[in-house]
């Protein structure tokens, strides 16, 4: 009896992977391919007559404003990637592998800077580092008694833009590298020491190569984020008088819209991204990087000794720039009349709070929509990413790699372009989705899928199949092994991916801006609307509300024991 039951259980388990595969292929194809199809269609369609044409692609090479926007966007993205990597890697090492004091707080603070929507960070830096009204410059002038034409920093520049974006993208690199360092077992490093390697040699020859995949993956995410980012460039680059490609594409939607040109202008972004992803693959492909097997020791800790103070200073200055200063600026602006006002009893006011909470009619609706969508998107994406990355990394079904490609593809679609693609796909008599939150849910799922998938698949490739093989040998089905063995091992990653996606959804702006209507307003959009009319006080109030709520969600997700809170705590 028992043996028959086992056999049957096993059979039904195996059978399940095909329907799952088919269902996922269908979902992902609809999510990803449909908008891409419309994009391709429109890129060959004349903006003026409606017939088939190559004019859009000719304009792409002939129009100097488009080429310039592309050049600047690429330079900006590389700058952001480089800066993020250079800052985040040493910091991650310090936090994961040294006796630096306050490591846990540092991790929490970095998470905080990840939760900060980049557009809010950009606005905070407008408040801090605008050449004349920026608080830093005001202080600088009053300390050195300089006249009003002098300034120390100017955020409305190309360098300023890179800096302001990197402040809020470096956590991608940090998190991935720190997690990888947590997992690198000490045996390899011990071996190096036993063979006479000094600590720097071990670091250089063993530890760094082991975390290289995480570094590259993190940097790549940072580059792609910057390349496809809309909010920060719209806030900082436009005042400086230049376009990056996303803002340029956005400007093509202004009346009269030039959809074909916009679609054509988006395609090179897709190609660049595919090239980058291939490059990453070929770098990583040559080496095996399994770091979490069935047998591993605890990570070893380097003692900093006399370098401790330098390390503390380094970490503190990074955290000041990415967390403390922007947050203080936002707080100050939320409670004083205008940005330039000094802080004293007469300038303190609750007028912005009164306006946002009681006078501004969009607030409540936007908050409700934002959190509902964040929750739905995070749950759906994590579930899909978990199953897809399992199918892909374990190659359980022939052709499963196709799923991985589909799940990564949206990373190449700038949110704003996806917004158009979705608008074209779902705003027609067949799918009456425009004007509902469902079109936003589809948009967010598509946008966040690559992030969720990247997280889950790197977690999967870190878990050696030997553990699952053991389960399979004992007679459990694939899904059962996944559920009983792999999922618990990946619990922290699943929670992290969920939080990633949740936070990513909440701060999404570029696709949202084309897809919201009066009844489906989101906080990010009203912040952007308010920024365009210069209401910084109200923005800061909304920003504080948004941040407080996001922190609460992330905090709860990480503390609930069922979700793996204990592991997180133990690691410190």
């Amino acid at each position: 009896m028992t043996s028959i039951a086992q056999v049957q259980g096993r059979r039904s388990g195996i059978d399940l992977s095909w329907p799952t595969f088919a269902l996922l292929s269908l979902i992902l194809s609809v999510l990803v391919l449909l908008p891409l199809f419309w994009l391709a269609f429109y890129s060959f369609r004349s903006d003026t007559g409606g017939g088939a044409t190559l004019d859009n692609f000719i304009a792409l090479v002939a129009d100097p404003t488009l080429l310039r926007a592309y050049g600047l966007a690429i330079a900006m993205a590389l700058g952001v990637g480089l800066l993020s990597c250079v800052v985040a890697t040493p910091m991650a090492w310090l936090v994961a592998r040294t006796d630096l004091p306050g490591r846990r707080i540092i991790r929490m603070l970095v998470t905080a800077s990840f939760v900060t929507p980049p557009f809010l960070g950009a606005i905070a830096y407008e408040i801090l580092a605008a050449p004349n009204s920026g608080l830093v410059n005001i202080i600088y002038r009053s300390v050195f008694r300089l006249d009003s034409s002098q300034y120390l920093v100017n955020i409305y520049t190309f360098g300023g833009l890179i800096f302001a974006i990197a402040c809020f993208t470096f956590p991608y690199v940090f998190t991935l590298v720190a997690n990888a360092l947590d997992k690198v077992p000490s045996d390899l490093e011990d071996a190096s020491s036993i063979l006479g390697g000094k600590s720097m040699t071990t670091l250089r020859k063993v530890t760094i190569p082991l975390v290289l995949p995480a570094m590259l993956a993190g940097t790549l995410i940072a580059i792609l984020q910057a390349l496809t980012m809309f909010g920060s460039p719209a806030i900082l680059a436009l005042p400086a008088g230049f376009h990056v490609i996303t803002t340029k594409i956005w400007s093509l939607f202004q009346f009269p819209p030039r959809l074909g040109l916009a679609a054509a202008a988006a395609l090179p972004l897709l190609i660049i991204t595919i090239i980058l992803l291939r490059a990453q693959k070929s770098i990583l492909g040559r080496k095996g990087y399994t770091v979490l097997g069935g047998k591993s020791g605890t990570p070893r800790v380097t003692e900093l000794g006399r370098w401790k103070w330098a390390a503390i200073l380094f970490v503190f200055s990074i955290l000041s720039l990415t967390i403390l200063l922007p947050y203080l600026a936002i707080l100050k602006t939320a409670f004083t009349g205008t940005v330039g006002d000094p802080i004293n009893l007469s300038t303190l006011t609750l007028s912005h709070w009164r306006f946002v909470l009681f006078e501004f009619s969009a607030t409540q609706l936007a908050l409700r929509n934002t959190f509902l969508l964040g929750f739905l998107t995070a749950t759906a994406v994590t579930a899909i990413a978990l199953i897809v990355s399992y199918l892909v990394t374990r190659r359980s079904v022939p052709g499963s790699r196709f799923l991985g490609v589909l799940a990564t593809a949206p990373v190449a679609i700038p949110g704003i372009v996806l917004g158009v693609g979705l608008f074209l796909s779902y705003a027609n008599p067949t799918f009456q989705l425009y004007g509902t939150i469902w079109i936003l849910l589809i948009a967010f799922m598509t946008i966040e899928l690559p992030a969720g998938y990247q997280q889950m698949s790197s977690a999967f490739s870190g878990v050696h199949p030997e553990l699952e093989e053991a389960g399979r040998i004992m007679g459990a089905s694939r899904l059962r092994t996944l559920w009983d063995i792999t999922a618990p091992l990946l619990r922290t990653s699943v929670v992290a991916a969920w939080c990633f996606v949740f936070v990513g959804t909440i701060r999404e702006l570029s696709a949202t801006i084309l897809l919201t209507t009066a009844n489906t307003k989101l906080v990010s959009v009203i912040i952007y609307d308010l920024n365009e009319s210069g209401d910084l006080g109200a923005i800061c109030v909304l920003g504080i509300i948004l941040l407080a709520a996001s922190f609460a969600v992330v905090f709860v997700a990480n503390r609930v024991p069922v979700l793996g809170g204990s592991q997180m705590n133990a690691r410190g």
Partner: protein
Amino acid sequence: MWKKALSAALFASGLAVSSAAFAEAPAPYQITPELEAAAKAEGKVVFYTATDVAVAEKLAEQFKTKYPGIDVQVERAGSERVFQRIGQEYSTGIYNADVIETSDAVHFEYFKRQGWLTPMVPQEVADKWPADERDPDGNFAAYRAHLSVLAYRSDLMKEEEAPKTWEDLLDPRFKDKMVKAHPGYSGTVMTSTFVLSQLLGWEYFEKLGKQNIMQVQSSTEPPKKLAQGERALEVDGNEYNVFRLIDEGKPIKIIYPDEGTPLAVGNAAVLKQAPHPNAAKLFYAYLFSLDAQQLNSDFGGLRSFHPDVKEKEGRTPLSKIKILHSDPAKLEPEIQTIKSNYEKYFGT
């Protein structure tokens, strides 16, 4: 959908006007108890507007006190964004908005051609509004007007140093000092760019573009950048925002240049597919009432075409200012040229 908006914009301007035969404006209506009751039954009105959000919300509040039980949902964005949004919505069959208002007169010619508006004439408009400030067919009327003004921080710039004319802005001493809004976002700035390019030529903007001007989007924003002290001089921006900031005690002064100051007229209309038709009718009539127009003037600093509105002391009356008028029919075919020239000279 998009195709419609697009082709219409590029080709239909001439065709549609000539081919359509419009009916006479409907008879004026008054706010009757029946209308009020019907509006209350609907309970809500959705207002798409380009007026500064604080002013629009204030107006909504006053409406709600006057007609309790009817909620006003204010959706504020820049004129061109409001236009883009309503275009997206109407071309896909989504009818959220009841009453619409932007500061770009071209939009209303376009709505009218598309047949998106319900003609109706509140009694107040029929009685008091000048004939050229309302649509002869009763589709829309000028709800507000404002100038796009030069202004400066009087604590950062002495009065004798401040510019007196548009040409003065080209002086090297104003380099790095100016802030300006964008014609692709703001209907006001689209209008002002059009009239100034006709008056002074594009060479003027080419030279102005070399002055390292801070570029913002909405025409409500340059006055706020002045208030923050981020820049000392605004090239354009809503006069009404400047009035409001002056009322708050900010050291800002307006300049009405010798060559003239561009005027932007903000029309309002009721949409054909308004989901709350009676509330829309009531709200629309209310927008032109003396109460609302006086509030716009006092709290909002807007100019009104209502002859009984009393302007605050200290504000230069329109009659004393040389005004540059714009003709929406001439502006419409120029939009693409204005945008591409603007990008050439200002970078965005």
